[in-house]
């Protein structure tokens, strides 16, 4: 099997992730509730994961909140900054995890920067949007469809300059690009645990530079006498029992990323994207590529669903369609056709690219016949 759908979730995980999940199931109880050994083992596991995330993203561990995915973190962050009817600036490449919560709040959305791989266009449009005094801004690190790496440092700087609080969607950037969350001055950074951070599905992180409002209320193991949620993090946002086995796996994934380095992982993925671009050109298949591209690449070749299905039956796993990001497709002019997306993971290698290109060559020859 050749797995090229890491943009949806990483399939390859370090062996340490599997071991950590299994060990947590055998040794951990409920963290922050009791003082016995299995409870304290769970608390230690959870805190170790906060520390690892804090180290990777330069952020205080007690402000690292666990979520079940990036979407949950984005919802919490958006609800913290946006009220019904507020104006919000977003990039032209946002995912439904951003646009749907904004729609639900009745926000007035200003999409800014629609040209792929063009930092000048993105930054000029971003500043024009910020001048309109939005209540908040939300932008992604990397387009999940096209792999376009947005100029996040500059966008963050503009937000600070115009005093617009902002949320960074690190769904595709966490683990595959250096990210100094504290340095960016973000109010919130949301990310999945199961993509570039190599943890299990059902894990996510929300780094909180500001204080969010809880949307889940319940036991936290702290201030139990009070009927209000604690006014401090992470407890304020972590009602109920945490996903300890998932967090144990995420901790192992984070430590793998820390040991290898996100830059090295990114370089590995980018190398394969470049090889794929060359190979697709030789096959006369149009793809979307450019400077500032991560390990994600979209292309069009006939009916994208039919092609992905054909490839899937031959053991090549990738995704077709709109990738939950119609705004990004609208920006790129692919809303009607969708694309086939190749997204490399931390184990990216030439054999994956060769396998894909070989299969595509076969597809092309069949189509010709």
């Amino acid at each position: 099997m050749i797995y090229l759908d890491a943009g949806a979730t990483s399939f390859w995980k370090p062996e340490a992730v599997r071991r950590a999940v299994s060990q947590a199931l055998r040794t951990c109880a409920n963290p922050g509730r009791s003082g016995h050994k299995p409870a304290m083992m769970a608390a230690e596991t959870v805190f170790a994961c906060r520390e690892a995330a804090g180290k990777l993203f330069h952020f205080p561990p007690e402000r690292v909140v666990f979520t079940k995915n990036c979407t949950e973190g984005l919802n919490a962050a958006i609800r913290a900054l946006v009220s019904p009817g507020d104006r919000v600036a977003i990039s032209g490449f946002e995912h439904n995890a951003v646009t749907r919560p904004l729609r639900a709040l009745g926000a007035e959305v200003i999409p800014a920067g629609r040209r792929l791989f063009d930092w000048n266009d993105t930054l000029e449009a971003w500043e024009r949007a910020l001048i309109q005094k939005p209540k908040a801004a939300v932008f992604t690190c990397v387009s999940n469809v096209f792999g376009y790496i947005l100029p996040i440092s500059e966008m963050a700087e503009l937000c600070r300059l115009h005093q617009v609080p902002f949320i960074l969607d690190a769904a595709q950037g966490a683990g595959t690009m250096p990210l100094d969350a504290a340095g960016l001055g973000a109010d919130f950074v949301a990310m999945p645990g199961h993509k570039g951070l190599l943890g299990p599905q059902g894990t996510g992180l929300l780094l909180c530079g500001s204080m969010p409002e809880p949307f889940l209320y319940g036991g936290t193991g702290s201030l139990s006498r009070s009927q209000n949620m604690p006014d401090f993090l992470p407890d304020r946002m972590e009602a109920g029992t945490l996903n300890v086995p998932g967090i144990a796996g995420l901790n192992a994934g984070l430590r793998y990323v820390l040991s290898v380095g996100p830059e090295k992982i990114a370089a590995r993925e980018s190398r394969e994207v470049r090889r794929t671009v060359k190979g697709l050109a030789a096959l006369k298949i149009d793809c979307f590529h450019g400077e500032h591209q991560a390990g994600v690449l979209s292309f069009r070749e006939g009916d994208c669903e039919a092609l992905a299905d054909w490839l899937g039956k031959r053991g090549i796993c990738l995704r077709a369609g709109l990738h939950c990001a119609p705004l990004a497709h609208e920006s790129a002019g692919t809303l009607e056709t969708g694309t086939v997306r190749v997204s490399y993971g931390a184990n990216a290698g030439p054999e994956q690219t060769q396998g894909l290109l070989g299969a595509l060559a076969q597809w092309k020859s069949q189509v010709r016949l």
Partner: protein
Amino acid sequence: MEHMGAEKEFVEYCLTFRSVTYAQRAKRLLDGAGIDSYLHRSPSALADGGCGYCVSLRKNVRAGVQALKAEGVSVSRVFGKTAAGEYQEAAL
């Protein structure tokens, strides 16, 4: 045994925190500063919010609290434990 603030001598000091996360952060920082401590559930008498965790240490409490303050970790309260096992709030 360390003499603190008032006139009492305590066998141990107990630093209380808002939640287990802050107690863990404190424990890590104390470890880093070379100050021995251990983390445990707060005794009933000290758990004024209903539940809680604390970090206990036998010596270097003043240096420990200062090290925590320097890293922005706020200690809720500091208690001294007498030889008889009673806790009394200690002023730093």
